[in-house]
């Protein structure tokens, strides 16, 4: 019922604008605001902070529903970066004051959030981070550069990771809240990407960026662990739209295969088309099991099993392109054209094995932990 409500909402309020924004590579502020109004952006936060107290499974279901409705990967990525990488980090590690100041505005969509972790020379190798935060009196002075930051150009508030102790590896990393328009803090232009085009991605620059010491999240040196905790969301809620998208593709392809006629009969009568439909379904069911397992374990209060999380990411990452490709080919020439959204879904799916830790990184993790 809950899932159906979100699907109906998204189909009515968001999906009609998806293709236009994708073509123009523009962020859809109106859709984002509507996600906030509907309660999706803050679903798992407490009611007193503007949320709905939802559990993780419900939150994942919401992400799946957006994908199933046909919402583009750009908007779901923006939602994920905003809610889970930024807002949840503030909620999970912030003080009461920080929570009260930021979570209601982020949950409603009044403010947009982002997270700055990756650097030009420090991707999955987080310990190589060069950005620094030097404490001077009641201020921190941030210097450095971030890259591939989802929502970077449009964010009102950012969670920025920087080293308070550059001599240390992971233990030297701390997290800070940085607001838009802070002197010395600016974003680069939107990076034009192959897919997830409606999400805005940029570099972030910190040039003697001065922030109040109270903007430190948690304690100095806790940043790495905070970033690792976002992995739970990354491997569940952020993957959920890919699961939903497979259901969307399956329905669209099934409808098309029943209507489109060649050689005097619907193409759905041909076995090769049925095989493509089957492979889309198989991916969706397998991926759903993996993603919901991570959510279930988080709901049970268990510490993240990093091996299982990497397995989920590797599977969804490496396998999600094949059904998107199947869906596009099933639609033939129409599938290749922007008018039909299959080509957009295929481009969006290409991010899956790259974003949030590449498939190769997942394989490194799995082979070390097995």
């Amino acid at each position, binding site marked *: 019922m809950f899932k159906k409500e979100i699907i109906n909402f998204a189909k009515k309020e968001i999906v009609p604008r998806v293709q236009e924004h994708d073509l123009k590579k523009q962020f859809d502020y109106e859709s984002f605001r509507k996600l906030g109004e509907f309660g999706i952006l803050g679903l798992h936060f407490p009611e007193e902070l503007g949320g709905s107290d939802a559990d993780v499974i419900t939150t994942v279901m919401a992400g799946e529903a957006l994908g199933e409705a046909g919402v583009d990967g750009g908007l779901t990525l923006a939602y994920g970066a905003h809610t889970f990488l930024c807002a949840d980090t503030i909620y999970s590690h912030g003080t009461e004051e920080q929570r009260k100041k930021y979570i209601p505005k982020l949950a409603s969509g009044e403010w947009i959030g982002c997270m700055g972790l990756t650097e030009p020379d420090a991707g999955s190798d987080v310990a190589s981070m060069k950005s620094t935060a030097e404490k001077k009196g009641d201020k921190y002075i941030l210097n450095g550069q971030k890259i591939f930051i989802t929502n970077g150009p449009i964010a009102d508030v950012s969670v920025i990771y920087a080293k308070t102790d550059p001599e240390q590896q992971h233990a030297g990393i701390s997290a800070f809240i940085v607001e838009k328009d802070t002197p010395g803090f600016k974003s680069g232009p939107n990076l034009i990407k192959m897919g997830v085009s409606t999400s805005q991605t940029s570099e972030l620059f910190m040039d003697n960026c001065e922030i109040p010491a109270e903007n430190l999240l948690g304690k100095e040196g806790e940043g790495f662990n905070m970033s690792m905790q976002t992995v739970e969301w990354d491997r569940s809620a952020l993957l959920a739209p890919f699961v939903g998208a497979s259901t969307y593709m399956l329905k669209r392809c099934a409808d098309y*295969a029943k209507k489109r006629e060649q050689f005097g009969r619907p193409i759905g009568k041909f076995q090769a088309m049925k095989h493509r439909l*089957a492979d889309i379904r198989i991916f969706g069911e397998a991926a759903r099991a993996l993603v919901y397992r991570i959510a279930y374990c988080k709901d049970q209060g268990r510490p993240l099993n990093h091996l299982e999380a990497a397995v989920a990411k590797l599977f969804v990452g490496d396998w999600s392109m094949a059904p998107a490709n199947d869906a596009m080919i099933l639609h033939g020439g129409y599938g290749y054209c922007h008018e039909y959204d299959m080509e957009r879904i295929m481009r969006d799916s290409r991010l899956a094995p790259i974003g949030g830790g590449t498939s190769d990184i997942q394989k490194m993790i799995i082979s070390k932990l097995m």
Partner: protein
Amino acid sequence: MNYDFSEKEFTFFTDLHNLMETLSKEADLENDNGGDNVMLALNKLAGTPYLKLALGEDGELNGLLTLMGAMEVVGAFSPSMLLAIEMSTRVFGRIVSSFGDDALKERLLPPILEGRLLGSVAVSEASMNVVNEPLKTEGKTDGDKVVLNGRKQYVVNAPLADWIAVIGVMDEKPAVFMVEKGTSGLFIEDKMPMLGYDGVAVSGIRLDNCAIDSSNVMGPFDKPTIIDSVKMWENQVLIGAGLGLMKAAFESARDYAKAHKSGGKPIIAYQEVGFKLAEMLTLFQTSQLFSYRAAWAADDNPKDADSFTLSAKVFITESAEKVAGCALQIMGGFGYREGNSAERAFRCSKYLQIAGTSTEISRVKIGDAAMGIR
């Protein structure tokens, strides 16, 4: 869906592991040994809740869901024993349990659950195809007898079975004919040599004016439910068999990669090997979850259970071949030797994609379901 096994289930799996470990030392389970080995295994398993899963009262275990985990354990030790036992207990047994009358259940279920009876199910015929399944094996009433004529192919356990459940038609409707070993007119062909499953006795059977008592007939049924049910049960067994093959192949390759050194370090340290193992484990874990979801769907959502089971079967049986193939590659010459679990898994995996509802027909049916065609 609950993504956990309970403590009781984990304990059961451990007990099962220990039992199979002991059993595999007592006998070469990949050799049917004239039926002695499968009866030995059945006898030992009867002392555990294993045979009762999805068939009888299994205490605090969870029927089909527990069975998926249990089949993985048994199948990892011996693919052949798993297939022989499951085709008897779960497929033959569930036919009796689901479609038999009280008298038949009373006669056949206790020996099945006590591991004293080996059953077999004969479905496949040369005339069967994708579009429909026109069974030619037919039973005709003759007084208080039913006379059977027809031929079945690829019948698992046929050369050893005490009873064979023959799926055929009667009055142009599906029916099951229970034929006891030694019945006049039942001819069992020679055991077929196969690529894999060395310890499973598979053969064709011929029914030539084979007269059985009418009390041994189930049906005729108005709907072809019986065939759909048998196929689904068989597919569930093949899913469990796939898990077992993957477990054996993956664990062998992983252990080998940790122990075998090249260039002064264990070969798992090389990304070529470590990444391959990561892909194998990903397929294995995904398969496990997929099987549990399919089992859960079969119990909870029968309407969607068929295409769900087929989806799981396609994924898991294809994954089994991939995992076994990768394991062979990682273990090099060591894995290629006869008797190595990867080599065995690789040979057996092909059977899983052919048997039950084949991979190709499964995809057709899944595609049909997606388009609302049932």
